[in-house]
């Protein structure tokens, strides 16, 4: 690990000032410290924001409001989360391990770095880590990599389960920075790799995530997260799907669907959603919609199975959502 400066801030103003001067925010540190030990992350200065009053979980109107410093475990276990947005609770419980969930913050979860093994090895090429050096994964081991949103420069999947649920539910985030405050959909936090895979998000320098807001909808209760993986816990998704359904009189009025483990960012599946509107919530309808999920997918030799697994996961997640009483 490289030597670094460390500053613990007490106020938001202090935090934003310190970050604007080149500091990196640290909360739970579950991603950052790990990567610093491998020297993949080399911050000059860390700004510890844990003392800021940005935790807490509340319901405002029909919105679930989650503070950026709330811990994954805390949000997952909170009765309001389970009551108004069970999909959020389920996606959190499926993420990481109990130890990590106790430490990791919501803001940090959304900004976690990719799990591509080559990104994490300094002796491998990686356009995300060292722009222009090349992508070792495209010709290498790529069984865990993305089939959607990839470029010739990067095929790494976005690792967050929570982000998949948030993107499905049209969640927004509020951030504050040197230029003031703004709010935008969580989906817009993430960039596609394109020719600039080292640019992963749309935050401006010094901007701090304050909170995440999940709007309630008629589909919020009828929502499930299915994560498919080879071991039952502590593994990144091979494929995951968040599915929420608004069913009225046996007919689907609205659907919200997003997938994880397949895209270079949390992947909203709007074409599939639209295909379900007006349909009965039965397997044939789900299967027909799921076929649209892999349109435009670009599989690699190692991850071709995801072309098969993504629609199946989505169908199953929709069935699970439809079964919610």
């Amino acid at each position, binding site marked *: 690990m490289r030597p670094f400066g460390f500053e613990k801030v007490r106020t938001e103003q202090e935090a934003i000032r310190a970050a604007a001067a080149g500091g990196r925010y640290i909360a739970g540190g579950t991603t950052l410290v790990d990567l610093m030990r491998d020297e993949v992350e080399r911050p000059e200065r860390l700004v510890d924001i844990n003392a800021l009053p940005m935790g807490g979980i509340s319901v405002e109107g029909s919105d679930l409001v989650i503070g950026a410093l709330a811990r994954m475990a805390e949000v997952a276990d909170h009765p309001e989360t389970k009551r108004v947005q069970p999909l959020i609770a389920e996606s959190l419980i499926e993420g990481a391990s109990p130890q990590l969930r106790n430490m990791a913050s919501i803001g940090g979860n959304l900004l976690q770095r990719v799990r591509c093994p080559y990104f994490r090895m300094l002796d491998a090429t990686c356009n995300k880590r060292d722009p222009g050096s090349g992508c070792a994964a495209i010709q290498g081991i790529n069984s865990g990599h993305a089939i959607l949103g990839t470029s010739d420069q990067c095929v790494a999947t976005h690792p967050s389960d929570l982000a998949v649920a948030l993107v499905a539910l049209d969640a927004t985030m509020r951030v504050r920075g040197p230029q003031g405050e703004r709010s935008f959909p969580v989906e817009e936090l993430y960039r596609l790799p394109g020719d600039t895979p080292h640019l992963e998000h749309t935050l401006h320098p010094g901007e701090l995530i304050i909170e995440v807001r999940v709007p309630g909808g008629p589909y919020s209760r009828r929502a499930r997260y299915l994560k498919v993986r080879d071991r039952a816990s502590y593994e990144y998704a091979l494929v995951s799907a968040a599915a929420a359904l608004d069913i009225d009189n046996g007919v689907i009025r609205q659907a919200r669907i997003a997938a994880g483990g397949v895209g270079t960012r949390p992947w909203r599946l709007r074409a599939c959603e639209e295909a379900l509107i007006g349909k009965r919530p039965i397997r044939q309808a789900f299967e027909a919609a799921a076929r649209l999920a892999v349109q435009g997918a670009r599989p690699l030799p190692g991850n071709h199975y995801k072309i098969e*697994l993504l629609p199946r996961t989505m169908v199953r997640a929709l069935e699970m959502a439809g079964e919610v009483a």
Partner: protein
Amino acid sequence: MTSIIGRPLTRIDGRAKVTGGARYAADFNQPGQLYAVIVGATVGRGRVIDIDSVRVLRMPGVVAVITHRNAPRLPYGPHKSYIDPAAGERLHVLQDDRVRFYGQPVAVIVADTIDQAERAAAALHVAYAAERPVVDPSDPTSRPIVPVAATPPDARIPADASRGDADKALMDAALKVDATYGIARENHNPMEPHATVAAWDGDRLTLWSKSQFVVNEQAEIAAIFGIPPESVQVICPFIGGAFGTSLRTWPHVTLAALAARQVRRPVKLVLTRKQMFVTTGHRPRTVQRVALGAAANGKLTSLVHEGTGETSRYEEFIEALTAVSGYMYACSNVRTRYRLLPLDIGTPNHMRGPGEASGIFALECAMDELSYVLGIDPIELRRRNEPEMDEGENKPFSSRSLTKCYDLGTERFGWSRRHPGPRSMRDGRLLIGMGVASATYPAFQARSSARARLLADGTAEIEVAASDMGPGTYTSMTQIAAETLGLPVGQVRFRLGRSDYPPAPSHGGSWTMASVGSAIRAACISVQGEAARRATADRSSPVFGAPPDGVEWNEGRLRRRGGSAPGQSYRDIVASAGRPIEASASAQRDPDVARRYSMHAFGAVFAEVAVDPDVGTIRVRRALGVYGAGRIVNPRLAASQCTGGMIGGIGMALMERTVLDTRDGRPVNAHMADYLVPVNLDIPKLEVHFVDEEDPHVNPLGVKGLGEIALVGMAPAIANAVFHATGKRVRDLPIHIENVLTA
């Protein structure tokens, strides 16, 4: 007094382990200690052409940068034990510029703190002339070889063996299966990383080092440095799991000792998790063909078993890959073949159930496949082929309880509830499968010594250079000593893990109980003899003047044979002697017994899996193992050991695989988030049973050992259950979701 052997005592070292009192290798910090970090090669083959040591030497805290350019030429005297490959020569670390595999140590940094050493290791620039490595067994340029150590006619692991004419019988067989099975490379991944603290005092070296074989580590390091073994002391009282990875003495031990000598200070070297994927051995990748021919009644008419394992280019690691096919079933026509495939990788080594675990996967999956071809229940098929003797060795088994294991397992598992057809059982949406496999492992015993000492307070101390990597050696050996001496367990202290104790064999191969246990028993009998000699010569003793066969021990007291007097206690005998009474003894298997009997443990393993037909998720719902392994010294620890082995088998079946990038041989999943081992949520109810088995031949204790057999058989039982659930036969381990998705 009721027997202490056979009691389900809890671990006597349990409190020390959970309270932090147990000290592992890396806990032995020394005054003035420096920290060493290894720099591994970042190419898979080639030469080191430049190392920029100068810049790194100027970094804060850096004391030394040791490379092949400035390292002393080490003698590397000849030394091989039975855990080292018989053919080839061990890696001579930092002795030349050759890179033989990705991750091979090319430098070691020594610094004041671990952080400074890690920082410097990351900053050290090494330039290579890289060549393309061959790490994939299916690479067209790789060529199998006949293992040198497997060619002598008396080789324990023969390259070629046969009886009858298996190929002709196969051709003639009306019913047959002929299939190829693959097993991925696995790394041991114990919790405790490899660690060595090295300190020189003049020409004497002390190593606090994670080792399953301290006396061999002593001999190996002495040979490498060209110093007498008496100058080296290896200390390892506790091991945080090993599974075989600490049997050999790997390059990091040499590097710790070398670094400590260079900087003239004690040095601590702990491998990173990532480094443990390349320089400390692994279960070799294997490819096996098994062909079975059978008559309609299920009797085997032919068994062909051909297996190839990978090895490095500088050593031939061999394991008993095809051995099980020689004795498992009755069949007059059997042919086995074993070959090696040298690749640009580090040398593999024994990993729990070495050879047998891999070999039985192929054999027991093939038996399962045959059961469907024949339409015979898989357990019934095994019963019909139960041999009366070891047909390969042409001698009787000392004991064999396989059918008893199947009887008990069938009942306890509820095998009768199984519908015979594949994809015929469901629980709601889920496909349910039940599978079964036989397990076996040789009942080895090696020569071991032990020392027993009676102390003035009436307690006893036992010392052996043995190890306890988790099975409960501390506890079970204490039970054997307490039983033999007639003392309560609390009055016996068993010490292990020092190379200056009486030598023990390697802590592996399921032979610690038989080997060390027998030696302890012998040492306890010896010290009783010594105590009796002193007592009968002591005028103040109630047994004074009695002839040697005129006395007997009863509950820790010596009395005249047949008498009713209370006799004399250890405490009184030692008090009269004026100093502790000590005796050493050795034990080994009677070679005549080994000539006359085939000695193995046997077991039957059952597994039930649920497979999600939509997304392919495979979960073990329950598993049960029944073992016939001789006398069980401590049923609680034995069951725990078996549970651990079964969990290892679940990992082998469904998760574990070290993935190498074929371009440079690097493991890409060298991280516990990416190399999957089962977590708690993956482990269902596991049941372990032992059948009563009295084996008068294996050793005086009647014990066979359990460490390996507990893993052997789990993977094929699961693979067979996956077939039963899905109708899809997956012949390559691990079985992942993508393999059953299109079932």
